[in-house]
């Protein structure tokens, strides 16, 4: 399937391995990525905090660009924070014709118009709803047997439920569980899996921010997880990049590898950890998990 692809800023900045691993995994899943390289940052909620209309208009521009991609079935992102910020803007734009017309008026100088009703899905949602778990299962080359994976959802992709279309029909707040199981791994439930990683307040209250990250990592360790997986690069920054600092705040050794979702999928599809950029993590998955026994060729 062809998608208008919004990679976000951080996947091309401080977590380049996310963008890279998505590019490697997409062809294996038969996803054609048409990158929205003309689009700007979603604002991550911060621009909306500054000026709501500005955030709505910048995102409407991105939506309009996505709607111009010929043959694209929908728009896809690989960042929960982008998903959350864009869904909030889209909710307002789709709810009120007058407001939408007003925002489109600002875009008219560039000849762009946002038409109500864009489908914008995070890779996690696309994986379950468009590709399907049966198809995903049929593509597995190396099941993640014996790998105990803690899902880390974060906030932006699970709340608020109504805005994000979460319900009985689409239990999107359980999709990481379903994907881990499909890939052959063991799901590890722990207290912090749908809590905040702390990243949004890292510059405002560093202590509280790192305490959040450290607690969740510690909870996952106590639950005996080998690694975490997250659909959000900002969560990844606080959980992986900042892990050495989080260790100091919570006063314990953590050493918990955190994988991006496309990396976990890529492993099961037979890609090499290095190819997926896992050597770029601060807590190297390869130094903590013995992949030769945990993943590759283990008995079912």
């Amino acid at each position: 399937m062809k998608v208008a692809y919004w990679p976000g800023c951080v996947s091309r900045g401080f977590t380049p391995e996310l963008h890279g691993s998505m590019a490697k995994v997409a062809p294996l899943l038969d996803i054609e990525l048409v990158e929205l390289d003309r689009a700007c940052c979603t604002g991550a909620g911060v621009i909306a905090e500054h000026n709501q209309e500005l955030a709505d208009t910048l995102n409407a521009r991105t939506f309009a660009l996505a709607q111009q991609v010929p043959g694209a079935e929908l728009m896809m992102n690989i960042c929960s924070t982008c998903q959350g910020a864009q869904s909030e803007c889209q909710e307002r734009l789709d709810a009120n014709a007058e407001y939408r017309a007003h925002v489109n008026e600002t875009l008219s100088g560039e000849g762009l118009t946002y038409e109500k009703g864009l489908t914008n899905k995070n890779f996690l949602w696309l994986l379950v709803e468009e590709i399907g778990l049966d198809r995903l299962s049929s593509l597995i080359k190396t099941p993640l047997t014996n790998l105990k994976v803690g899902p880390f959802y974060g906030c932006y992709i699970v709340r608020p439920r109504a805005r994000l279309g979460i319900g009985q029909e689409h239990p999107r707040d359980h999709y990481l569980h379903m994907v881990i199981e499909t890939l052959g791994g063991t799901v590890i439930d722990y207290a912090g899996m749908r809590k905040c990683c702390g990243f949004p307040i890292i510059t405002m209250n560093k202590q509280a921010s790192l305490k959040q990250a450290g607690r969740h990592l510690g909870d996952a360790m106590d639950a005996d997880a080998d690694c975490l997986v997250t659909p959000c690069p900002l969560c990844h920054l606080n959980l992986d990049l900042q892990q050495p600092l989080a260790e100091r705040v919570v006063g314990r050794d953590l050493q918990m590898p955190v994988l991006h979702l496309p990396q976990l999928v890529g492993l099961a599809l037979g890609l090499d950890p290095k190819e997926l950029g896992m050597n770029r993590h601060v807590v190297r998955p390869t130094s903590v998990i013995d992949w030769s026994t945990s993943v590759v060729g283990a008995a079912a």
Partner: protein
Amino acid sequence: MSETHDRPPESFTLRLRRYNPESGDAPYWEEHTVELEPHRSVLEGILQARDKYDGSIGIRCSCRQAICGSCGIRVNGEPSLACHTHLDEAKRTASDGVIEIEPMGNMPVLKDLIVDMDAVHWKKIQRVTPWLLAKQPVPEREYIVPRESMVDVTQTMACIQCGACVSDCLAMEVDPGFVGPAALAKAYRFVGDPRDDQQFERLNDLAQDPHGLFDCTHCFKCVEACPKDVNPMGQIMRLRRVATGDYHIVDRNNGERHEAAFTTLVKDHGLLWEAELLPRSYGGNSWFGKFSPHAGKELLSSLPAILKALMRGKVTPAGALKPHKIPKGDLKSVQSIYEKIEGRPERYELNLYISGQDEEPAPAEAPDLLAAAAGSGDPPGAPENPEESVSQ
């Protein structure tokens, strides 16, 4: 009567968390099975268990119709009003078919499902001076204010003080000093009130407090928890907008600098430049921000993480020093959007709580709701004669 109300009574098993701090015993779980029609509330289930099996079960309740806010508890781990949660729905969301009932979080338990609202919730509400500090002189008769400005604060006035948002606030979980969602929503009640005389003082106080306006982690827990759609996080964001945008308050918690740096970097490059965002958030919103002593100290403390990232090739020095950008023509378009919107005389907000969902082209009355939150300013398509819209 709807179909669901005709269904006969069914069995529901409740797993209650019992705790009496005065007993000296540890908390324990206890199961009771009650018989009720599925549309009945979890509160009715708890009360039946109390009547039938154990008169000592502690629960606070009063109105039984989601108005008084007394019966806040956690049902299957989620903050809820016991009287506002149907038994069948609670059974459906239970992990093992047994409805799990606990007291709210972030507040000490007095007994069973009763938490100490005074120790946390009410103390925090008091913290924000929850009354009108009236402009002087007080008019002899009533204040005359624009209708829109009062419509704007109705969302926060819908709060029933149940404490559900406080219960699950993730910032409060790691920083118990955080003023919190309920109290900050209450603060907007007065900051947004045109009769109040101390809006700057209120905002400045909360912005400078290390546990105040900028301590919210934007996790949407309170938005989800609120049974009255108060959207406490949304009110916190509005407080921030007014503090930084209207009163230009520069706080000591880097809140204003972070917002300014983020917004400016996206304007200058189209994409976020993370390596520049952090030093500017600490040292000020310019390229020179990183050379301020405040930024230097902060960067030094982050050195272990920075060095690790460099070592791993996660971040390259060249990559950190050079922003990634969108094409020139597109950047120009983005900048013209910034200029147009930031050049408006008033900020422009759409609050769906007030405007509602509108499938069709807006009726005559809808447009003035667009600008309701901003207080004034002419929204697009606003009727020339406002009386016309009122008459509808």
